[in-house]
């Protein structure tokens, strides 16, 4: 076997590699800075692999077509940034209720509105959770390095297929555009999950069969005929006004993610064992935090880092446990306090929680974090 080759890849290029590795064979979208390189990459790669790439008329068309691709049986993806993510929200809700697996990448730039297209931000944390209306399950992964964008994109596909639900990959412009050495994993090196297919005869098939927590999804056009609607529906997919079925279905789509949260959560802990002050952050800000932790340790300060790679469902338990054993949790984020509120909710007053915010299109620096931590010692 040839020696695996290390390449210098941009974050967005690593996302393409991850999608291809996971078996994504359908992409539809609309270009927007700072996510466009994902679309460009997919347009080059997919046709060579027998996949399909479509540039749609806008972001709404992009996600709608990707949902169609997924229903037809292909692992599908769309990518965008803040303003486009807003446009996709209606279809994200549709995917949650109709239980269509899909990966949506949001490379976060400054907002609100058109905002600062070439500047980094982490201000779509809450949009990822609550951008679409109604109670709905949300899974969002948050890589922090270029190699991790590849592996977390693979994980996003696995979660989407496993739970029949849209999964978001959230990272900021710095990660999207920066380059790091990446070794592309060999086939079989990373786990790749495929969606469950029905074992019953087509005439017995129900797309929302209530024998299952997550029913198998037949590819449209494979002889299994079924109905899909954004209305509350019965197990055969047709609309219903039956309040019992409506309640059960609404609760079930939440429950399928909630009861499996431990297998969805993924955290990295850096020097937390004896930490007196902890930092909680994601993405490129976690890189600043790690740098700061190393510097703080050199000057004898017991600092540590809790870095979630799954931000939704929120790592409630990890934060709650941490709040019992540190004086303070510092939450640096490139927004005005979206994660800080969640950390406060989980810490329940057991330790101080302090946000460190930045919304000028510049990264939070290691020295900003260094000085914030020192205030608590």
């Amino acid at each position, binding site marked *: 076997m040839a020696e695996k080759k290390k390449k210098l890849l941009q974050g967005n290029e690593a996302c393409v590699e991850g999608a291809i590795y996971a078996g994504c064979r359908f992409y539809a979208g609309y270009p927007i800075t700072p996510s466009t390189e994902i679309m460009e990459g997919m347009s080059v790669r997919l046709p060579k692999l027998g996949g399909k790439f479509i540039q749609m008329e806008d972001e709404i068309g992009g996600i709608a077509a990707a949902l169609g691709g997924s229903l037809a049986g292909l692992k599908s993806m769309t990518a965008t940034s803040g303003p486009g993510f807003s446009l996709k929200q209606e279809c994200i809700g549709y995917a949650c209720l109709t239980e269509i697996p899909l990966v949506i990448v949001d490379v976060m730039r400054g907002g609100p509105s058109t905002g600062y297209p070439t500047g980094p931000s982490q201000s779509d944390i809450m949009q990822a959770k609550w951008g679409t209306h109604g109670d709905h399950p949300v899974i969002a992964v948050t890589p922090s390095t270029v190699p991790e964008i590849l592996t977390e994109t693979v994980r996003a596909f696995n979660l989407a297929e496993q739970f029949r639900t849209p999964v978001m990959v959230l990272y900021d412009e710095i990660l999207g555009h*920066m380059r*790091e*050495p990446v070794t592309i994993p060999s086939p079989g090196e990373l786990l790749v999950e495929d969606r469950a297919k029905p074992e019953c005869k087509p005439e017995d098939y129900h797309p929302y069969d209530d024998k299952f927590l997550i029913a198998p999804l037949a590819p449209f056009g494979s002889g299994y005929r079924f109905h899909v609607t954004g209305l509350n529906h019965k197990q055969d997919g047709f609309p219903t006004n039956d309040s019992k079925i409506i309640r059960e279905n609404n609760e079930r789509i939440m429950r399928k993610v909630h009861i499996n949260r431990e297998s969805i959560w993924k955290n990295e802990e850096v020097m937390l064992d004896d930490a007196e002050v902890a930092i909680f952050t994601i993405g490129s800000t976690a890189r600043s935090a*790690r740098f700061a932790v190393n510097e703080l340790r050199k000057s004898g300060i017991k600092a540590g880092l809790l870095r979630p790679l799954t931000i939704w469902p929120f790592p409630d338990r990890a934060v709650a446990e941490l709040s019992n054993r540190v004086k303070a949790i510092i939450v640096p984020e490139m927004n005005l306090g979206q994660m800080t509120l969640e950390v406060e909710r989980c810490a329940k007053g057991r330790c101080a929680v302090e946000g460190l915010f930045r919304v000028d299109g510049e990264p939070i620096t290691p020295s900003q974090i260094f000085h914030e931590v020192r205030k608590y010692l």
Partner: protein
Amino acid sequence: MSERYEIRFSGSGGQGMILAGIIMAEAAAIYGDKNAVQSQSYGPESRGGASKAEVIISHGPIDYPKATAIDCMLAMTQEACTKYHGDIKSGGILLVDSEEVKTVPKGDFKVLSFPIIGTAREELGKTIVANIISLGMIAELTGVVTHEAVEKAVLSRVPPAFLDLNKKALQIGFEKAKMLK
């Protein structure tokens, strides 16, 4: 922090500063035995405006991807020089294009002024390779990557028809920098 070697390439959008940064990172991490992270910042314009690319080189993991204390900075325009020179560390190097940068900033760093774009124009007839000349100069001045590594990195990034031109540009960069040292 001393394990980090930080380089900033700055100029105007379209001058190939980001490409220079990518090639430097590849020279270090793909064709050399070090780790490297390349990042960039630019405005909404596709041409013009101040643009910069940064490369952090280290033997170990690199956390913060942006420059903190710059070992070597290149400035190809006055605007970029004025805007971006503030992070050069004490004892660092500032290499400027002498025809473009007339007001050289003062600081506790070494300033090297050389007509990079003029050399590209006069010796190679193409100003477009000024970024490759500057890459050769920086490799020679800093020694952070070997000549072989940077040559391999340049040649893997340029179209076949321009291999000779870029190879020559790089050699010119090495030689001119030797005279400046």
